[in-house]
């Protein structure tokens, strides 16, 4: 179980996240939706500490990182990052490494796995994302959809407790989008613990166990798609209807 308590984040004067409380249940897919600038991406980045929150606590299976008192140590940050896999909007594959090289980088450098073991596991991941034949390709030789699938395999390679997706298909055209969405759906069905920030409402409806609506840095409502759709809050229904 992953629990976010009273999390706040400001950039200078502007408060991006205000006292966020959220429970991410294991083996479930949590989807974060909301208008642009609502703080969705910042929340996701706070979970693997690419942004350091100003206040609050993160509790991953009993390992608590608190931002209320003393400054968090680098050790605590690295420990949490190891357990959370991040998939970026812009893929961010390492251009100087092959698809296989991208996947084994974390296991070898961070987890100190042997090269043989890392390669063996990476090959299984490549199979999972359907790109075994691209193992020796460099990122620039792959389509956007293929790059994102490699990026997902790279995140999986660390065997994270939670997989985080930051608008994973925003940089893709509709044709390539579908292969990435299908892969995420497959992972969701395999009961990975997933948190996704997305604008794809139909996708949210299809795979989301818990859908969280954020506006102006606050969680307004959460639950199933049906629950949100029937919400008395006109802000939410307006938002959902705009996509239908």
């Amino acid at each position: 179980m992953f629990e976010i308590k009273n999390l706040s984040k400001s950039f200078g004067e502007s408060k991006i996240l205000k006292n966020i409380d959220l429970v991410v249940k294991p083996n479930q897919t949590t989807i974060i939706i909301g208008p642009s600038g609502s703080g969705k991406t910042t929340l996701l980045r706070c979970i693997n500490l690419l942004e350091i929150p100003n206040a609050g606590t993160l509790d991953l299976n009993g390992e608590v990182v608190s931002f209320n008192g003393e400054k968090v140590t680098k050790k605590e940050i690295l420990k949490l990052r190891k357990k959370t896999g991040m998939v970026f909007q812009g893929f961010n594959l390492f251009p100087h490494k092959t698809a296989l090289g991208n996947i084994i980088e974390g296991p070898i450098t961070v987890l100190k796995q042997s090269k043989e073991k890392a390669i063996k596991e990476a090959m299984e991941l490549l199979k999972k994302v359907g790109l075994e034949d691209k193992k020796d390709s460099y990122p620039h030789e792959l389509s956007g959809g293929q790059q994102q699938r490699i990026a997902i395999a790279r995140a999986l390679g660390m065997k994270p407790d939670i997989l985080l997706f930051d608008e994973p298909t925003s940089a893709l055209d509709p044709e390539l989008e579908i292969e990435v969405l299908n892969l995420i759906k497959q992972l969701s069905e395999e009961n990975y613990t997933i948190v996704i920030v997305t604008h794809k409402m139909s996708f949210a409806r299809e795979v989301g166990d818990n859908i969280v609506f954020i506006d102006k840095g606050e969680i307004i409502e959460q639950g199933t798609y049906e629950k949100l759709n029937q919400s008395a809050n006109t802000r939410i229904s307006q938002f959902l209807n705009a996509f239908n």
Partner: protein
Amino acid sequence: MEISDRIITLIINSFWTILKPGLIYTIPITLISFAIGLVIAIAVALIHIANLKVLKGITSFYVWIIRGTPLLVQIFIIFYGLPSAGITLNPLPASIIAFSLNVGAYSSETIRAAILSIHKGQWEAGESLGMTYFQVLRRIIIPQAAKVSIPPLFNSFIGLVKDTSLAANITVAEMFMVTQRIAAKTYEPLILYCEVAFIYLMFCTVLNKIQKSAEMKLSIGQKI
């Protein structure tokens, strides 16, 4: 006919005499100074990137001084000036120190710019895997920055080959000084200075070739 025969004989006889100090002074001074300069440059660039307050003050001062004063003046200060402060150096180490400091200051900016040119997403991708700052730097950022910095670093390298001729001013018997001596004896400055220029040109041509192949090697996996 007689004149041209004399000139050809002069060129042939002087060629080895000029090339020899090139091989035993110019090339070693260049290689050693560039290697030390590169270490200084990387250290200075990393201090600036990591924003280490006190050290950054010291290194900024160093870069400011070196880039703002002539190399020849720096060489004179180290060789002729420092003995007054109780530090006496032989000509060769004095020139190597001067060249290393010079390359270090200029190249630190090259390396800093190359590191900054790497997209922020690369840092984040490495960090999100749980890599430490130095792991990301060493395994992700530096290999990409190296490619970007090759052309400007070779600019400094080639510049250094020619700058070593300034060591003649502090009695290092390198190529240019030897050429001056021969020219003074034979009264053929045009021929001899063109000859030494040609040798410098050959050295730099070899470096051009090395640069090309280094760029090819480092461009693997990246759009050219």
